[in-house]
């Protein structure tokens, strides 16, 4: 079956521009997570959606970052006025139930020039 998909796979943008990253979770998965991974580093939690509950936004590094999940499925992570320090791989994961096995997408590599 289809796994988690993310688009685009690569994004190069200029400092100050806005970007949108998309995540399509596995159908039926209620939980969706966004992480950021800088080169050679660990997984930095950004935001977590669970069912119809209010998202846990505690990991968003600044108010330039926002995310939404429409219809309990597709999610979009938006970064406004991008900065060079935003350059990283952005990973999306989904799980069938909260606290369950997480399936990761291939990630979006964001480069801010």
């Amino acid at each position, binding site marked *: 079956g289809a796994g988690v998909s993310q688009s685009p796979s690569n994004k190069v943008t200029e400092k100050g521009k806005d970007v949108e990253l998309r995540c399509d979770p596995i159908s039926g998965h209620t939980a969706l*997570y966004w992480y950021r991974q800088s080169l050679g580093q*660990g997984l930095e*939690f950004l935001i977590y959606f669970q069912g119809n509950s209010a998202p*846990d936004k505690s990991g968003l590094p600044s108010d330039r970052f926002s995310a939404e999940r429409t219809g309990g499925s597709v999610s979009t992570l938006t970064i406004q006025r991008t900065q060079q320090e935003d350059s990283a791989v952005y990973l999306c994961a989904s799980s069938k*139930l909260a606290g369950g096995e*997480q399936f*990761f997408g291939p990630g979006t590599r964001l480069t801010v020039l």
Partner: protein
Amino acid sequence: QQPVQSPQAVILREGEDAVINCSSSKALYSVHWYRQKHGEAPVFLMILLKGGEQKGHEKISASFNEKKQQSSLYLTASQLSYSGTYFCGTLGGTTDSWGKLQFGAGTQVVVTP
């Protein structure tokens, strides 16, 4: 809080054993283990639940000591395919959103012929 993983890195020859530890300062409900190969997304290995038994995946097994809030991942008779970065993710505590994992910084494992 982020769990602490040790060691940061380990180099093994094929067939050797290794242990990776994951410690938390708070009471845990479960511990997840993931492996990430270079340039790829993390892949789930196993979950250890509070009160559960030791788990295994191929010749990789893990244990969970609830009293010490620690989990250990055992790589037995390592194979070249075991190379990668291993992350533990912990779930627990009432201050976090249920289902939100705290990931450790990772342990890089290199298996040489």
